[in-house]
């Protein structure tokens, strides 16, 4: 939608205002992370005597954790998309028997509380030696992200105009060729969106991180945060600092990915 310069400026102002309201709690998080002492009850509206002590502590203790989380999340995205994309395409475009059953099964998997899955995975992973391993966490996080990715990508692919697929088939392309050369590029929005959510699911996963590690060497950042709250003494300053720090790389990655969600993917394709 093209707007006049003036309307553009107004929109920007409205946009910033909207975000200011939506992100006030985030501001509060940053605010309290910069204040020393008893955060919570005695936090002021602005950090009058800002201190970076909480950040220094968080970085020194959680720095490695952020890298761990990044590795696991990226692995989850790759694995989920690799498995989900073909499945989503088939479920969207092909007439196969049992399609409704499979879709229903996917929806049902989303109804199961995570802790039930985690409890079942623990003994299995223990036997397979997958505890305390990045691979184990990637596999576990993928199980959460996969059904969602399939359902979302399928919803996008259902709306693909049939003509482009037909055109490819007429030219003699097999299923794989059609998928790789035609469907995937056109479904860029869908793939990126699904990947985005896979990343988010994995990044914010606490349950599998807790269950499938035994507190020794592998700690994703969600687990690291929890350690500040474990005992009777709860230090919220480092918690907030860790929260902010851990959000930064994620936001950068996601902002980068969002650039590729562009309009008019099909412009010119159906001519």
């Amino acid at each position: 939608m093209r707007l006049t310069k003036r309307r553009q400026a107004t929109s920007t102002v409205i946009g910033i205002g909207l975000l200011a309201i939506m992100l006030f709690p985030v501001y509060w998080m940053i605010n309290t992370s910069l204040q020393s002492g008893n955060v919570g009850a005695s936090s002021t509206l602005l950090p009058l005597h800002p201190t970076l002590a909480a950040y220094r502590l968080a970085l020194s203790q959680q720095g490695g954790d952020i890298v761990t989380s990044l590795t696991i999340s990226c692995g989850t995205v790759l694995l989920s998309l690799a498995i989900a994309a073909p499945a989503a395409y088939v479920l969207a475009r092909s007439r196969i028997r049992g399609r409704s059953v499979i879709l229903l099964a996917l929806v049902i998997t989303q109804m199961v509380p995570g802790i039930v899955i985690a409890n079942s995975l623990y003994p299995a992973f223990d036997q397979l030696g997958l505890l305390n391993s990045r691979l184990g966490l990637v596999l576990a996080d993928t199980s959460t992200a996969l059904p969602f990715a399939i359902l979302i990508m399928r919803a996008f692919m259902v709306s693909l105009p049939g003509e482009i697929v037909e055109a490819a088939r007429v030219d003699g392309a097999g299923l794989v060729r059609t998928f790789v050369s035609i469907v995937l590029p056109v479904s860029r929005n869908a793939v990126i969106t699904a990947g985005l959510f896979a990343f988010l699911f994995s990044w914010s996963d606490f349950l599998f991180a807790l269950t499938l590690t035994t507190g020794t060497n592998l700690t994703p950042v969600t687990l690291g945060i929890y350690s500040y709250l474990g005992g009777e003494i709860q230090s919220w300053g480092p918690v907030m600092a860790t929260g902010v720090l851990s959000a930064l790389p994620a936001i950068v990655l996601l902002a980068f990915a969002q650039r590729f969600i562009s309009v008019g993917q099909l412009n010119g394709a159906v001519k």
Partner: protein
Amino acid sequence: MNRQGSRSTRVLVAAATCAALALALAGCSGSSSGSGTSATTGLNLTIEDYYSQPAAAAYDTIYSACAKQLGDTVTISHIAGAALIPKVLQQVSSRTMPDVLMLDNPDVDQIAATGALSPLSDYGITGAGYIPGIIAAGSYQGKLYGLAPAVNSLALFYNVDMFKAAGLTPPTTWAELQADAKVLTKPGRYGFAFSGVNTYEGTWQFMPWMWTNAGDEKNIDTPQTAQALQLLTSMVQDGSASKSVVLWTQADVESQFAAGKAAMMENGPWNIALLQGVSGLHWASVPLPTPQAGQKSVSPLGGETYTVPQAGDSAKMAAAGKMVACINSDANQVAISKAVAYVPAKISVAEQFAKTNPLLAPYVTVVQTARSRTGELGNGWDTAATAIYTAEQLALTGKDSPAAALKQAQGQ
């Protein structure tokens, strides 16, 4: 060369060889009876607890020192707070429990009831000379499964400056507590703060009031318990305590007190290090007020015990037993208490400790008469605890009178 000489030489040599062999064998059997001890050396023991920094560092030092003393090495896992029990249950079912497991004392009965723990008497640990309450907490069906090196309880913290300004002395009876709280309540600050949250933490904070007034967890639908609940409810209703107590954890309560938003708080000694770090805050602690003058307050007993899970490997279990004994040594009791502001669990050690740690002296007095939560109901405590905090929430939010709330909760 006469033959007799060579024969006697041979005899001598034979005798010497026999003697040498005998000596060697004696030496071997000497070390093999000592291999009862050497069987517990050179092992790697796993320890699991729920401490987080900075407490974890203090415990790590103690675990390593104890292990070194035994000639073993130790692998330490810290699993944050509430996540420990679910993890323990997973390990119980997959038979991968650690060699030494720390359990908060009210959880001992639950885990012991599964059969996954071994009695400490197997390792010669009796808990003699310990506070009776903590032995009761760590026992299940008459056997001791968990022993705590240090304990804590609840007391009344008060703001010395605010009391001086109001010309008051710290309250000793319930009536005084209510009156003082009312006087000390001003805009921007409440007279009294406690935790009435919807979890076992809220129950924990209610126990001193209930127990000191002769209430009992077997049946909470009694006038004594209702009076205790009425005390807290009145303070919320007349504005001396914030309505937010139904949401506050003990950490939130400490936060309020440290910010000067509460003149008195009910809390435990683990806050001492935090409070000492707040500039401009002058505080002190006394035992909680009792219904009548001259009574002794009966507070709940906190503190973490160390247990030895069943592992099927008797050498490892024996080593684990020694580990538990070492962690509970007098010197370590003092070290732990100093590090996390607890009180030694052995009565004689505690009395000595009180002399050199005046800030913790009130707690030494309190824990002598403290009671364990699971002492009476064992692993049926969870149901009673849930009923207690349910009733407390109903009364504090004004949805029901204390008596009606207790009746409803007891009936559920």
